[in-house]
């Protein structure tokens, strides 16, 4: 009997990609994806279930489908995507409902992987250069996204304590960069002049989007419980990041930097307060624990940035890749209609 996997946030970048990767795995029998938005990637056998943002439907799904693995990728770490209220609903209330369902009597859930973020460490002057997994931040979490992620991790921890038979892995990702993902940082790096904070040149760490996916699949496959930082090797100054991208930096004033970002918002680059802190103080997370567990990265921090830059150059010439549009009727036709001949060898 193979795995039955529930992915939260199927419509997100990670959920979709993870579902694609799991579809290729014969050891996975069932993939169910939950989201409030439709998937944005082409999926063959993943079942998409629309839910509201706080997953009130979840209890029923877990019971009905008897999933044994939950991958929680729905956590919002980019606070520019939505209003704070919604972010709280999705992150905190959604996680609460997820774990309530997973710990209900008779639950079949045995593995849980949560995709969190290095944002939980914050960025302040007092932090060590490298934060280990057991690092406890001294600076209070001031932004909504940081507070919500800390609350989420609290729920994860409680769940792990209350359900010792469940293997819980919590992954904290550094700044993700790559060909396809769009974050405030990648948008900033695509501007003609890269914004920085006057007088600060902090050291940044990146993780390549493929390494993120590989890390999630790794903990799923190897069943390593615990908290793991996921980030590429090396720290490089923000000015060097810009240099790798062939750009110069333009300095925002260090006092009232959040005011100065208002014109940037017009350009589609919103630098939230947690990123202003990062642009002042930087953050390094120690990635050795996941390496000890046996994971090997494919990209260093600088390597990830360079690959991002090359893909931007390509996109500028040949245009963006076409976006996949999910159409419920079409999907149902391909999956359910007796007219479709299944199990035929794929044409190579």
């Amino acid at each position, binding site marked *: 009997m193979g795995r039955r996997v529930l992915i939260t946030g199927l419509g997100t970048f990670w959920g979709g990609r993870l579902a694609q990767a799991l579809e290729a795995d014969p050891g996975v029998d069932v993939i169910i994806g939950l989201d409030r938005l439709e998937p944005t990637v082409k999926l063959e056998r993943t079942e998409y279930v629309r839910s509201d943002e706080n997953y009130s439907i979840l209890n029923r799904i877990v019971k009905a489908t008897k999933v044994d693995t939950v991958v929680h990728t729905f956590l919002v770490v980019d606070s520019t995507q939505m209003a704070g209220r919604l972010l709280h609903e999705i992150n905190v209330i959604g996680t609460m409902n997820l774990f309530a369902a997973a710990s209900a009597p008779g639950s079949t859930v045995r593995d849980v992987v949560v995709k969190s973020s290095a944002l939980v460490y914050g960025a302040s*002057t007092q932090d*060590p250069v490298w934060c280990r997994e057991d690092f406890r931040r001294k600076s209070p979490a001031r932004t909504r996204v940081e507070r919500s992620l800390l609350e989420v991790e609290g729920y994860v921890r409680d769940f792990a304590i209350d359900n010792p038979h469940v293997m*819980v892995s919590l992954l904290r990702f550094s700044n993700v960069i790559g060909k396809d993902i769009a974050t405030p940082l990648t948008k900033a790096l695509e501007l003609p002049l890269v914004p920085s*904070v006057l007088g600060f040149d902090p050291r940044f760490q990146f993780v390549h989007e493929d390494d993120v996916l590989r890390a999630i699949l790794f903990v799923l*496959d190897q069943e390593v419980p*615990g908290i793991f930082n996921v980030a590429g090797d*090396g720290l490089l100054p923000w000015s060097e990041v810009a240099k790798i991208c062939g750009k110069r930096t333009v300095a925002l004033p260090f006092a009232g930097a959040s005011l100065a970002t208002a014109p940037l918002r017009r350009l589609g680059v919103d630098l939230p307060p947690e990123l202003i802190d990062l642009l002042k103080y930087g953050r390094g997370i120690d990635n050795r624990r996941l390496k*000890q567990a046996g994971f*090997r990265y494919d990209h260093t921090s600088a390597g990830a940035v360079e690959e991002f830059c090359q893909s931007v150059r390509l996109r500028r010439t040949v245009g963006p890749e076409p976006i996949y549009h999910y159409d419920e009727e079409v999907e149902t036709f391909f999956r359910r209609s007796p007219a479709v001949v299944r199990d035929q060898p794929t044409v190579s």
Partner: protein
Amino acid sequence: MGRSMGIASEAMAGTPETDDRRSPSRADGGVTERRQAAIGNPAALVPVALPPLAEEDAPLPDPRRSDVDEWGRSQHMRELAHRLYQPIYDSWFRVEWEGLDKIPAHGGALIVANHAGAVPSDAPAIMHGIETEVGRPVYALADHIFKGMPVVGTLWARNGGVVAHPDNAYRLLREQGQLTLVFPEGSKGPAKTYAERYRLRRFGRGGFVEIAMRAGVPIIPIAVVGAEESMPIMFKIPALAKAIGVPYFPVTANMLAFGPVLGTLLHFPAKFKLRVLDPVGFDDVPPDQPRYSRSRIMDESEAIRQRIQESLFDMLQQRRSVWSG
């Protein structure tokens, strides 16, 4: 087994150790060893003991464009700073070392010294001296307040300044075997007024001894004469310090002589003498312990403080003039 998982399995294929780990399959309903470990310690999601990190097989492509290391130090920047500072070192402070051969040529060591002068002039002198004469980089642990200052913080980091955090110190000393400088008096040293010169303050809570024990490195004490007179504090304005959020706000003789701006930058040309004392080793205690005896730490800390204090008095007895030594 048959549970290969797409991309991840490619990276995993191989080592017998990984095979071993994946063999207890979920399907048999058994609880794996790892899971058992997790149950053993419910308080943490972090319970599993993992094998030591194996050597990386092949280095990944790492297209760096600058030589700024993980601590923010840049060798280029240091060399530029050496060229700029050399005349000050030679002609202004006329720095004279004694026992520089006690600084080890390899391996980590924690250098501790007395700290003085409103804007301390001892740190650059010690770092410049060791870097140019011993030829090893020196990282200086300092208060995190510098990191928050625009421009200053960046320059400080490029020149080897690191936030004084036990994790940073351990990594520098134990894992990277670097020379690391720390002033155990902290800001209490430079905050003394001229009337209290060369009287060492409390050496914090002895944290530097604990770090050296944990990292398994010796402590090398240095006594510095001259920094006190290079920028003496006449009096302090606590209200102003509180208002702008700095540990102390000094009014120095330099400010009275050169004005408020130049006075914070320009030191008086006091003669600098530095004496390296015999290293203190902690070979009898094993490194990497979670805790060390508090009384031992405090005793060692006090003994080192005493030795620096006595050397200072000895050097001051022999000093004929503040300016010519």
